[in-house]
Structures are given as structure tokens and as C-alpha cells.
């Protein structure tokens, strides 16, 4: 009943998803299956599918658990405490999320490869470590978004009644956080489930995800039928996981009182010690691989310098435009993708967050699918489907649209837990007092949702900045994005190319941190619109 008056909000997300995801993916699967007529068993057994599928699932589960173990304390510190550099840390933690796997892979190999501090090359630990590195931002933003709005007086009450700190957390805070933890877990799981570059670079050849197997079918064997069959297996797996998740989720939400920002300064030396310790840990885990790249960008033959940055402004024949223009391209694609994702994802979140019905669970699962679908499937899907009625295949708009497709699930996952946590009684009180559904939404839901929507906007922007897989299919040579520019530099021999790729990576880090900080600032100021 709570959904009354909001069904219309589902229309735009449904149309967007149907036209830019379902239609292209179904089209490419039909084309792929029609490429030849080998049997399923033949194609799938050939790819060693059982091993690949098993590895895909278990490494994703392990990555998710590890990311939660490392990420939750960081989310707690940022959500609960005010300390100098808190905003910078929150923005900075988003950086790893956007880094192209080819440079992060290089950094990880430098640290933990054959000549690193420890040699983990070819072991699954290196893959898991990279997944944790990439996904901490998801836990910090998605869980932290709700954690920062939980009323601390609940936990305080438990403490006053004699519960230990741990018991208070376990019995009061953890159940309240469960929707956000589940949401973050589902994103991290899907990200690791479809992991491509990390596995290819760090997997030591034997370890492959379904995503890597699809790419190999297409890329070296030009085997569209095999790729389509693998893509179907991947989609079935992802759909099953998502449906189980949504059904569980819809039943479990706890309604509660939310506040705007519950952070306070740490009290006493011990609490300061814990906070600073966790911050230092986060900086080490996330900072060292990034630091390697910055150091390499500044290393030149005659000592340290900014030469690689200076040369970026010069016209390079591989680019058709000065490489620095990639910064402008990335920014503008990021803004457009963010706007699309916030509008589409925000509307979808309203529908899902205010309904407990089965249809909403389906809707929720379907919206997450793009995150669990291989970039090759989506990229090729665009090519075969989007030529009529308007030929969008070579349109510049397809780049932010593709980015938004991947970013929408982040928006939904960040906003829905908050919406689900709002007490019905608040809405009912407003309705009893004569407010129309729209007015209830504006005065009750929106102020609380606005903050999480802005947290989601930061993630959506970051998704766009870092997207590489689908972009390679559709970006135009005169409008490269930052990850594409980095990749082009690394495609040629010579120290200058390597140095410029590292410089470009550093610029990508700075751009990410600056833009996400600006969005976060809106978030704290715009808390009560």
C-alpha cells in the first residue's frame, strides 16, 4: 500500500533498461547463438566451464568477505567520527575504484610479483588483494551512507543498560546496518564475479573467471556462439544470486529513526588511537599501490621531475588531440553519466524502497544485471541492436549511457537501504495530517534520501571515470577518456610512453579525488533540502 502513487516512477528506469540493456543483450545472444550449430555440451565442455564457474563463484564470495572485513572498520570510522582529513579520506578512498586494471596490475606486480616484497604472482591471494583494494570504496560509501544516519542514542542506550561495546554493536547497530551491508556485498560480489583485467593480469593463466573466458572466446577464437553460451551461463548465475538477494532483502529491513549526521569527535586517547589506527591502515592498504604509480610518474632519467606531465600537453599522433583533452572528456562524460544514473537510479530506488511486493524484488534484480554482465556482451549488444530507428552506435552519447548503465545499480543500492529504513509511521503521520503522497515524499523521504543520493552520485561519477571495458567499443578516437589514454600510452615501447601513462594515471587520481570531494561537499551542505 505504501507504493501507491509511485508506480509512475518505474516507467523511466524500465524504458532505459529495456532499450539500453535488455534489447541489446538479447539481440547479441540471438546473433551469437545463430553463428553456428554446435551443441551446448560441446561448446561448454571445451571451455573447462565447471572449473571456471566454480572459481568465479568462490573467488567472488571470498573477495566479498575480505572486503567487508577490511572495509567495515573504515566505514565505521568515517561515519561515526569527526577528525581532521575525514572528508579527504572519504574522497580519496574512491580513487582505487576508478584506476584502470592495467596500471593497478602493474603496481601490484611491482609489490607482490616475482621481484616484489613477497612473491604472490599467480596465486589467488593477489587477485583477492586487488579486489579488496578496488572495492573498499563501495563498502565505505554504501554502508557508511546508512551508518552516518543511524541515531547513536540507540547504541548509547544499550551501553547505559550495561552492554559491552561489542554486544551493543552486534545486537543494535549490526541488525540496523544489515540492509546496507547486504547491498554493498551484492555490489562487491558482482564486481568480483565479473572481474576481468585483474584476473587476466594477476591470475597466472590458470585462474579464469567466466568474464575472461567469454573474452577469450570472442577475442582469439572469434567464436561468437561459444561466447554467447558462456554469457548465458553468466547471466543465469547472476540472476539467481540477485533474486535470492532481493527476496531476502525485502523481508529483512528494519524501520528506524534516521538522523542527518551522527558523527562526533573521538573522546579520549584510546578512542583517538583506534580511529587513527584504522585510518592509517586504510591509507597503507589503499595508498601504497597508488603511491607506486605516483613515484613512477615522477621518475625521470635525471632524477625527479614533472617532465612526463609537461609532455602530456603536446599533440601526440596517437591521440589526434592533446592527451590532456582526455581530462575534459572524462569529466563531461562523468557528469552526464552521473545525471542519468541519479535520475534513473533515484526513480527506481523510490519504487523499490517503498514497496515490499515481489514485483519490486524482480525490478531490483533486473536493475542490477548490467553490473553482472560482461562488457563484451553489452558492447557488442549495442552494435547489433542500436542501429534503428536512430543509429546510436557511433553516437558520442552512447559513452555516458553505457557508463550510466553500470552506475545505476550503485545509486539503487545506496539509496534503497536508506528508504527502507525510514519508519512508515513518519509517512503515515504526514498522510494523516493531510499531505498528498508527493508532499509526504518531499518532506519525509527526500531530506533523508538526498544525502545518500549524493553519496551515490559520487560513486556513479567514479564508475564513469574508471569504466574501460565497454568504452573501448564505443569511444571515438578524437574523444578518448582518461583510462583509454593511459592504455594507448602503454601500447607502445619507450620510456616516455610509460612515464606519460603513469603521469596520466596520477592525473586520473587527482581528478577523481577533487570531483568526489566537491560532490561530497554538496552532500554535507545540502543535507536538508
Amino acid at each position: 500500500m505504501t507504493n501507491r502513487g509511485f508506480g509512475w516512477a518505474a516507467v523511466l528506469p524500465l524504458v532505459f533498461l529495456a532499450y539500453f540493456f535488455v534489447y541489446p543483450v538479447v539481440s547479441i545472444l540471438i546473433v551469437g547463438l545463430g553463428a553456428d550449430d554446435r551443441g551446448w555440451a560441446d561448446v561448454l565442455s571445451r571451455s573447462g566451464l565447471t572449473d571456471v564457474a566454480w572459481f568465479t563463484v568462490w573467488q567472488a564470495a571470498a573477495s566479498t568477505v575480505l572486503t567487508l572485513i577490511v572495509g567495515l572498520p573504515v566505514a565505521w570510522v568515517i561515519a561515526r567520527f569527526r577528525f581532521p582529513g575525514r572528508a579527504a579520506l572519504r574522497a580519496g578512498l574512491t580513487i582505487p575504484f576508478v584506476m584502470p586494471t592495467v596500471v593497478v596490475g602493474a603496481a601490484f606486480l611491482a609489490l607482490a610479483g616475482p621481484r616484489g616484497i613477497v612473491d604472490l604472482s599467480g596465486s589467488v591471494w593477489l587477485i583477492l588483494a586487488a579486489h579488496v583494494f578496488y572495492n573498499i570504496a563501495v563498502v565505505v560509501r554504501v554502508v557508511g551512507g546508512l551508518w552516518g544516519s543511524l541515531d547513536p542514542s540507540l547504541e548509547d542506550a544499550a551501553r547505559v543498560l550495561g552492554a559491552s561495546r561489542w554486544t551493543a554493536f552486534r545486537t543494535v547497530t549490526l541488525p540496523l546496518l544489515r540492509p546496507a551491508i547486504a547491498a554493498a556485498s551484492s555490489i562487491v560480489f558482482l564486481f568480483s564475479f565479473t572481474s576481468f583485467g585483474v584476473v587476466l593480469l594477476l591470475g597466472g593463466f590458470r585462474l579464469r573467471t567466466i568474464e575472461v573466458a567469454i573474452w577469450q572466446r570472442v577475442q582469439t577464437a572469434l567464436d561468437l556462439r561459444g561466447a554467447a553460451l558462456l554469457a548465458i551461463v553468466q547471466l543465469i548465475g547472476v540472476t539467481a544470486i540477485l533474486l535470492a538477494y532481493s527476496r531476502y532483502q525485502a523481508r529483512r529491513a528494519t524501520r528506524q529513526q534516521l538522523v542527518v549526521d551522527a558523527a562526533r569527535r573521538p573522546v579520549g586517547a584510546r578512542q583517538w588511537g583506534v580511529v587513527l589506527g584504522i585510518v592509517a591502515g586504510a591509507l597503507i592498504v589503499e595508498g601504497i599501490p597508488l603511491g607506486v604509480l605516483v613515484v613512477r610518474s615522477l621518475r625521470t632519467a635525471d632524477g625527479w621531475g614533472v617532465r612526463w606531465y609537461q609532455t602530456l600537453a603536446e599533440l601526440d599522433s596517437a591521440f589526434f588531440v592533446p592527451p590532456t583533452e582526455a581530462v575534459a572528456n572524462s569529466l563531461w562524460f562523468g557528469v552526464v553519466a552521473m545525471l542519468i544514473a541519479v535520475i534513473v537510479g533515484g526513480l527506481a530506488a523510490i519504487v523499490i524502497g517503498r514497496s515490499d511486493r515481489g514485483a519490486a524484488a524482480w525490478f531490483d534484480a533486473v536493475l542490477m544485471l548490467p553490473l553482472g554482465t560482461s562488457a563484451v556482451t553489452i558492447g557488442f549488444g549495442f552494435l547489433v541492436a542500436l542501429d534503428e530507428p536512430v543509429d546510436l552506435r557511433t553516437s558520442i552519447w552512447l559513452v555516458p549511457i553505457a557508463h550510466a548503465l553500470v552506475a545505476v545499480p550503485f545509486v539503487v543500492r545506496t539509496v534503497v537501504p536508506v528508504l527502507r529504513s525510514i519508519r512508515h509511521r513518519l509517512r503515515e503521520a504526514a498522510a494523516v495530517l493531510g499531505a498528498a503522497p508527493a508532499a509526504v515524499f518531499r518532506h519525509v523521504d527526500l531530506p533523508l534520501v538526498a544525502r545518500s543520493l549524493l553519496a551515490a552520485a559520487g560513486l556513479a561519477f567514479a564508475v564513469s571515470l574508471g569504466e574501460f571495458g565497454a568504452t573501448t567499443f564505443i569511444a571515438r578516437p578524437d574523444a578518448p577518456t582518461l583510462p583509454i589514454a593511459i592504455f594507448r600510452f602503454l601500447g607502445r615501447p619507450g620510456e616516455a610512453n610509460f612515464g606519460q601513462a603513469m603521469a596520466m594515471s596520477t592525473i586520473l587520481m587527482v581528478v577523481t579525488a577533487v570531483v568526489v570531494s566537491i560532490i561530497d561537499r554538496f552532500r554535507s551542505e545540502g543535507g536538508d533540502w
Partner: protein
Amino acid sequence: MRQRSILIWLLAAALFLAACTEAEPVDAEPTEIVLMTHDSFAVSDGVLEAFTAETGITVRLLTAGDAGSLVNQAVLTKDNPTADVLFGIDNTFLSRALDAGLFVAYESPELAGVDPTLIVDPEHRVTPIDFGDVCLNYDKAAFETTPPPATLDDLLDPAYAGQLVVQNPATSSPGLAFLLATIAIYGEEGWQRYWADLVANDVAIAPDWETAYFGNFTGGGGSGQPIVVSYASSPPAAVIFAEEPLGEAPTAVVTDGCFRQIEFAAILRDSGSARELIDFMLSETFQADIPLNMFVFPARTGTPLPPEFVEHTTVPSDPKTLDPAVIEANRDRWIDEWTRLVLP
């Protein structure tokens, strides 16, 4: 209210009509032509503009990922191509595209100036534009006192144990080319034994060219092996992209056991303009611009080469090739067998 909705309907109808008229192309020579290529394509500022000045045709570029992705995209959009001309398909993927019937045959008059060994398709569905050789490169600093390998057989010598890094052919184009070179040299019967011996001599495997060259190869700043599978043009590139001007390349090429990759252009949607663009890509202007941009060699014989290409590399006299149809028929199986044999 009613009047407003009538207005909206009228507006919608007008837009619809406008869209329809726009969608019907006028059947004239296109003045804009779309060239679809891979993401290593590069050309100097002013070269394509020269083509426009000469013919009135502007060229719009589209990139489609790497060379493999380019072929896939062309196959998938066969019924409604996104481009008029495709550039960048090579002999390792050629057969697939020819079988799919993607290209319109065109025999350019400029082919008269092209090295005849590069003209692979007698029907001229594809036109050779450039070629590059995948060869072993070595770090000169590591071989100051001992000789570098001269042939692929030398790599089996214990003296070169642990000194070579190659790319996985399942994930890397030069890796595949090197595997094809060994198959061309040792034959269907012998290549597996050669690789088993390479493994016994401690060959290192990297997933892609970037990791092998920058991460492993000591001549590329890496910290692993002094011999790498790369291109004949890599030493000139190392000179051009060096930090300090170099008198001498830090790396050199082993000219035995190279595999020749030929890059072709082809017409996807026939028109006079498409043919003019093919002719232009074989013209001296475009051909002379190729080496310093794409680090491959021009197909047109007698095209002047930049000094770096003359001084720091050698075009192998006896590069290996395989018939594209043979590659197409066996590629998948070879990669599988290689994987079972070589990967730990």
C-alpha cells in the same frame, strides 16, 4: 487544454516527418566517409586534411578496440556497417572476415607500387597497407660480453636459460604471432617439442605485451628477462620515445624466426569515395607517414623511411607466414595445445 494537445500532436507529426526525410539518404557521392580502425591507428596532423583538400571528402574516424575486436565488430554489423572503409585487419584474422563476406573487392591502381608478396588475396577484397614483423628483441646491455641468440634454436641453449619472456597467445596478438612463427618453422609435428624444450629452458610467460615489455623485459625498464617477443620496429620506437636523445638503441632485433603481420584496408560500403580513400592510403603521402605513427613498415616499395628505422632495425629477410585459411582452421586448437603444454 485541447488546443495545446492538438499543437503537440502537430509538432510530433512535424518532427516525425523531418526525421523521415533526414533518414532517406540522397543518392549522391558521400562527402564524408567513415574509417573504422583499431585503437593503435595513428596519423600525423594534416595528412587526412591533405586528402580532404585533394578530394573534398572528409574522413571521420571510428575506433573499435584492438584488431581482434575490430574484426568481430565488422562481422556483427555486416548488414548495416558503421563505416565505409575498414583499416587494420591482419593476416591472422583475415580468413574469418573473408569467409563472412564483409568486403567489396577493389583493385586499386596504386597496388602497382606495392611489394607483391604482401598481396595475399587475389580477388583484392583486401588491400595491404603496411606490415610489421613480430621478432625477438634483446637488451643490448645484457649481451655485451656474450652473444645474443641468432636463431630460435639458440634459445634452447642452456646459456639462454631463463632469459626469454613471451606472451600468452590466448591473450596477446604478438604472443600468437610468435606461436605461429614456431609452427611455420618447426611444422605441425615439431612445434610442440620445441615449446617443451623452451619450457625446460625456463621460458617466462606474460599475459600481454605491456606486462612483458615494461614489466619483465630488462630493455624496457622491467626487472626480469633480457629477451622478449616484440616487434622489429620496437628499437626505433625505444629511441624515439627515449627520455634523452639516444645515439644508439638500447635494444636490438633477432632477425631470424620473425612472423610477418600484414595490415589491410578494405571497403565495407562501396562508393567512389571509399575507393579514393583506399588509393590515398597507398599514396606516398600516407605511406611515408606510417612508420613514425604506427611503428610498422609501409607496403609501398621505395617509400622513404625515417632515419631511426634505417639505423636501429633491420627488416628480416626471411619472415615466416602461414596461409590465413590454415591459421583460421587451426588457431583455436593450437592455442589449446599450447596452453596444455606450456602453462604451469
